[in-house]
C-alpha cells in the first residue's frame, strides 16, 4: 500500500480563483492511502518544491499527486523534485486542475467537485504505479538537416561549429533556397545574395558538413539518437566529384527552351544547367525531361565538351543509408499558386505577377538583368499596383486561401514599392491593403519611409478585379477610408501571395512521425517554451516549415534549433522513455498480433522454456519488447488478447483505476 502525498497548487488565482483548493485538499486527504494533503500558492516554485520534498521526507511518502497545471507543463518539474528525495520519478502523477478545470469552468462548486474527482483518479493511478527505470541508448553524433535554404544552412553551420557532423539533404540541385532568389532584403535593403552566398560557400567548404543536393529523404527509421535514414540521390547524370562547374556544357547544350525555375519561369535555361552562378555545389545537372540524349539517345554534346569527363548518361538514382542522432526539418515554403485567383487575372494577364516574380524582375541576375520591365512587352511600367493578402488571412470557408497571416508580405511590399519609386521616380505605386503589419525592429520606420519619403500610395481596401484593358490592366478596387470605388489603369499588378509549407513537408512529417497542424506547418513541442522542437523526440524545426517568418527570425530560429540539436549530440547516451510496453511471458501466446501493429518493429519472438505441471518443461514462443526501440504508444496492448502485453506507466489496471475513480 502506498503512502501518498497530495499537493494542490493555487497557481496564484489561476486555480484558486475557481477551485476551492482547501476543500480539495481536505477531500483528497480522506482518500485511502493518502497520508498528507495540502495546498500551496505555487507548487512549481522553488519553495513549493521544497514543501513537497519536506513532506516526502517527513511522511515517508511513496507516491505523490500534484493537482496543478497540465502535466505537459510541470510533470517533469515535480518528478525531478520527488526524485531528489529518493522517490522514483514515475511515482508522481499530475491531476490537471488548471487547463482542464479552473480555466474551463466558472462555477466554483462544479470546478471544485471536478478537481476532487481528477485528484482521486490520480491517486487511484498512483496506487498502482511502479517505480520505472529509464534505459539508455547510444547517440549517433551526426545530424541531418532536411532542406538547404537559409534555415537549413544556418542550422548546419552552427551544429558544425560545435564540432558535430551534419548532412544537408536538399531536393534541388543547389542549396540556397528561396533567399537565393530574392533581390534585396528588408528593412536594410542589403542584397540577399551578398549575405547568403558566403554562408553557402561556408557550408560547402565546411569539413563537418556534407551536402546531398538533388537528393530526397526516402525513409526514416529509428528513434532519437539512432535514426537510420534512407536518402535518394537523384541522378544528375553528372559526376559531382569530377564536375568543376566551368559551365561550358551549359553554354553548348542545344536544348535551350527549358523554363528557368530559378527565374520563376520568366526566361529559359538549357537542359544541362547550373541554377545560378553561386550555386553550391557548383555542379551541372542534366534535366532528364528535356535532355535529347537521355530522351532519344541523340546528342551527347555536353559529354563531348566536358573536359573533366563528368557527364554520365547512365547514372542511376542511388539510395544511401546514413545514421543520425537528430534530424532537423527545414523544409521551407512556397508562395501559393495565384492561378486560383481569377479576379486578379494572374492566369490570363501576363503583367499580373507575384511578388517573388517581381524579385526576379528587379534582380540584376534575373531575366531582365535588373531593369523593371513588364513581362508582356518589356516596356517600363508607369503605374504599379500591389495587392496585399492574396490568399492570406482568409476565412475558414475560403478553400483557395490560408487562414493565417503570411507575415512577410507587408514588409516586402513596402520594400518593392520603395525600390521602384527610388529607381523609377516616374512610376506611380499603389498598395491595396487590409492592415499594414509592421512589428519588428525598424519595420515601422521602414514602412513609414515608403509612404512619407517615397510617396507610395497606400490605400486601405481590397482589389475587386483586375482585367486586361488593351495594353493596360484595369484595376477595380475600393478605398475603404474614402468610401469610394476606384479604377486604376495599371501597367503592372503585383500580388503578395500567401506562403505555404513546401508540398513535400507532409510526407517528411509522416516519415519523421512529427505532427503537423491543419495548414501543414510542423507543430512545435510547445508554442512558447519549446518552439524549435517537434513533439517527437530528436526531431527539430528550423525556419518557415514551423510557421511564416522573415529572414532574421528564420536565422535566429535556425541557430536556436542548432543549439537544441547540439544538446542531443553532446550526450553520449540518451535516457529512454521508461513507459514502454512489456510482455508477460507467462501469459503470452506468441500469436504475433502485437507485432503486426508495432510501428517500430520493437517486438520480437523467441522460444523459451517454461516449467510445466508435474515437473515437465514446456517450450513456448513468447514476445519480448526492445525497450530502446519501443516508443510506448500502446497499440500492442490492445492487439494482445490475453493481456500479456501491457504498457508501463499506462497499464491496463492503472487506466481502469482512473476510469473507476472518474465514474464513481
Amino acid at each position, binding site marked *: 500500500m502506498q503512502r501518498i502525498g497530495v499537493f494542490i497548487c493555487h497557481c496564484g488565482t489561476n486555480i484558486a480563483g475557481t477551485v476551492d483548493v482547501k476543500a480539495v485538499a481536505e477531500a483528497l486527504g480522506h482518500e485511502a492511502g493518502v497520508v498528507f494533503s495540502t495546498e500551496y500558492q505555487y507548487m512549481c516554485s522553488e519553495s513549493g518544491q521544497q514543501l513537497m520534498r519536506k513532506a516526502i521526507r517527513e511522511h515517508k511518502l511513496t507516491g505523490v499527486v500534484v493537482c496543478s497545471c497540465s502535466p505537459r507543463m510541470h510533470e517533469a518539474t515535480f518528478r525531478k523534485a520527488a526524485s531528489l528525495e529518493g522517490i522514483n520519478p514515475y511515482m508522481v502523477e499530475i491531476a490537471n486542475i488548471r487547463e482542464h478545470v479552473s480555466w474551463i469552468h466558472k462555477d466554483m462548486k462544479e470546478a471544485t467537485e471536478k478537481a476532487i474527482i481528477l485528484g482521486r483518479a490520480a491517486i487511484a493511478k498512483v496506487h498502482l504505479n511502479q517505480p520505472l527505470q529509464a534505459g539508455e541508448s547510444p547517440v549517433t553524433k551526426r545530424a541531418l538537416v532536411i532542406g538547404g535554404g537559409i534555415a537549413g544552412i544556418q542550422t548546419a553551420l552552427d551544429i558544425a561549429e560545435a564540432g558535430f557532423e551534419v548532412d544537408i539533404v536538399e531536393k534541388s540541385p543547389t542549396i540556397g533556397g528561396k533567399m537565393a532568389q530574392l533581390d534585396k532584403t528588408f528593412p536594410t535593403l542589403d542584397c540577399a545574395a551578398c549575405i547568403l552566398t558566403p554562408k553557402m560557400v561556408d557550408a560547402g567548404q565546411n569539413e563537418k558538413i556534407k551536402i546531398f543536393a538533388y537528393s530526397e529523404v526516402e525513409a526514416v527509421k529509428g528513434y532519437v539518437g539512432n535514426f537510420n535514414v534512407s536518402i535518394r540521390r537523384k541522378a544528375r547524370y553528372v559526376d559531382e566529384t569530377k564536375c568543376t562547374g566551368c559551365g561550358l556544357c551549359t553554354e553548348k547544350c542545344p536544348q535551350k527552351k527549358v523554363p528557368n525555375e530559378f527565374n520563376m519561369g520568366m526566361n529559359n535555361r538549357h537542359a544541362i544547367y547550373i541554377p545560378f552562378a553561386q550555386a553550391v555545389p557548383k555542379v551541372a545537372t542534366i534535366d532528364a525531361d528535356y535532355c535529347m540524349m537521355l530522351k532519344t539517345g541523340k546528342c551527347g554534346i555536353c559529354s563531348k565538351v566536358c573536359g573533366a569527363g563528368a557527364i554520365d548518361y547512365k547514372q542511376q538514382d542511388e539510395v544511401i543509408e546514413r545514421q543520425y542522432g537528430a534530424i532537423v526539418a527545414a523544409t521551407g515554403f512556397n508562395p501559393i499558386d495565384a492561378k486560383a485567383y481569377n479576379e486578379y487575372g494572374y492566369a490570363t494577364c501576363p503583367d499580373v505577377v507575384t511578388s517573388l516574380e517581381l524579385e526576379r524582375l528587379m534582380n540584376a541576375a534575373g531575366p531582365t538583368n535588373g531593369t523593371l520591365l513588364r513581362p508582356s512587352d518589356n516596356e517600363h511600367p508607369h503605374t504599379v499596383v500591389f495587392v496585399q493578402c492574396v490568399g492570406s488571412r482568409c476565412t475558414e470557408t475560403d478553400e483557395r486561401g490560408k487562414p493565417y497571416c503570411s507575415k512577410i508580405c507587408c514588409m516586402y511590399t513596402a520594400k518593392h514599392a520603395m525600390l521602384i519609386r527610388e529607381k523609377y521616380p516616374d512610376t506611380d505605386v499603389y498598395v491595396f491593403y487590409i492592415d499594414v503589419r509592421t512589428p519588428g525592429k525598424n519595420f515601422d520606420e521602414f514602412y513609414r519611409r515608403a509612404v512619407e519619403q517615397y510617396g507610395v500610395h497606400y490605400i486601405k481596401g481590397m482589389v475587386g478585379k483586375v482585367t486586361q484593358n488593351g495594353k493596360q490592366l484595369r484595376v477595380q478596387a475600393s478605398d475603404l477610408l474614402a468610401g469610394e470605388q476606384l479604377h486604376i489603369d495599371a501597367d503592372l499588378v503585383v500580388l503578395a501571395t500567401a506562403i505555404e509549407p513546401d508540398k513535400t513537408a507532409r510526407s517528411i512529417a509522416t516519415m519523421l512521425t512529427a505532427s503537423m497542424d491543419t495548414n501543414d506547418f510542423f507543430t512545435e513541442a510547445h508554442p512558447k517554451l519549446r518552439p524549435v522542437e517537434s513533439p517527437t523526440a530528436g526531431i527539430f524545426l528550423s525556419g518557415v516549415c514551423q510557421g511564416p517568418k522573415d529572414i532574421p527570425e528564420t536565422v535566429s530560429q535556425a541557430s536556436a534549433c542548432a543549439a537544441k540539436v547540439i544538446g542531443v549530440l553532446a550526450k553520449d547516451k540518451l535516457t529512454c522513455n521508461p513507459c514502454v510496453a512489456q510482455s508477460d511471458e507467462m*501469459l503470452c*501466446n506468441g500469436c504475433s498480433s502485437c507485432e*503486426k501493429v508495432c510501428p517500430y518493429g520493437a517486438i520480437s519472438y523467441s522460444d523459451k522454456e517454461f516449467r510445466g505441471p508435474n515437473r515437465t518443461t514446456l517450450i513456448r514462443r513468447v514476445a519480448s519488447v526492445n525497450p530502446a526501440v519501443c516508443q510506448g504508444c500502446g497499440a500492442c496492448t490492445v492487439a494482445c488478447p*490475453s493481456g500479456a502485453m501491457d504498457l508501463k506507466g499506462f497499464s*491496463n489496471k492503472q487506466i481502469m483505476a482512473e476510469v473507476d475513480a472518474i465514474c464513481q
Partner: protein
Amino acid sequence: MQEMMEKRALELLADGTVNRVLGWSVGEFPYDMTPAVFRSAEDLKDRFVYNDFCGANLSKYLIKESKGEGKILVFLKPCDTYSFNQLIAEHRIKRENVYVIGIECYGKADVEKLKAMGLSGITGIQMKNGEYVVETVYGNKTVKASDATAERCLSCKSKKHVVFDELIGEDGDVVEDCNRFDMVEKLEAMTPDERFAFWRGELSRCIRCNACRNVCPACSCEQCVFDNPNSGVAQKAAVNSFEENMFHIIRAFHVAGRCTDCGECSRVCPQHIPLHLLNRKFIKDMNEFYGEYQAGADPDARPPLGTYTKGDREPNEGGNK
C-alpha cells in the same frame, strides 16, 4: 467413410508416419462421440468411430498435441482446416508434428434437432439414403437427414480444405452464396430497441460456464483475461447483465479477425445462445469495411485489425439501422 478413415489411420500408425491418431471414440448413444487420442491399432479398432454426429472441431487439441513426442494424425473437416490454418498463422501448432487428413463433409447432424421433434429414449440411429431411422423406446421414426442438419452447417461457408496432407473423399469449393449473414442482416434491420431486447433475452441465459471460450480454437490464450485475477476484469459468474455483455463483447472482439466462423461456440452452448451471431457481425463488418477476409484461408494474409488504410471509414459513421 469410417472404414476408410480407420484403414488409413491403421496404415499410418503401422508404417510409423504417426504415433497417435486424433479422432472420435464411440459413445453411450448413437450421437455422443467424444474426441479421443488413439495410441494403438487395438484401441482404434475398438473405439474409433466416425458418423454424422462427429461435429467437434479437433484443431484446438493440436495446440497441445503437436508439442508432444512424434507426429499425430488428425482428421479435419473443411471448416476445421480453417481453424487449423489460423492456429498455424498464430504459431500455436507445430505443423511438422501433424499429419492432416482432410475428410469430406456435407453437413453434420444435430441431435438436438431430433430431440426437438419429440424424439426421446433414443437407442439407435440408422443412417442411409439421406434418412435417419431413429430407434427409440417409444418406437421408431424415419427422419430426413436434412431436417437434422446442424444449424451452422446450413450456412456452410466452405467445403474446401485449405490445408491437408491427404484427403479422404472429395475436396469441395468455397460456398459463395452461403447466406451466413442472413440473421446478422435481419438483426441489423431491426430497431436498436428490438436488437437490445433480442440480445438481452439471449445473453441473459448465459451461465458463464465458459464452454464457448474453452471450445473456441481462437480462444487459445494461455490464460484468459477473465480468469486472470491481475487483469482487473476477472469474472467468474454472470453476476449481472453487464458482465454477460462484457464477457461476450470482449470475447468477440478478441477473436475478431481470427475467428474462422467454425460455429463451435453456438454448438456447445448449453443455453443455446447464438453466440456465432456476434462473431459473424464482426466478420461481416470487416468484410464490408476493409475487404473480404476469411480467417484461416491464408495463414500469410494480414488480418484486418493488424493493418489499416489511410482512407478507412470513421467510427462515428455507423453501420446498422
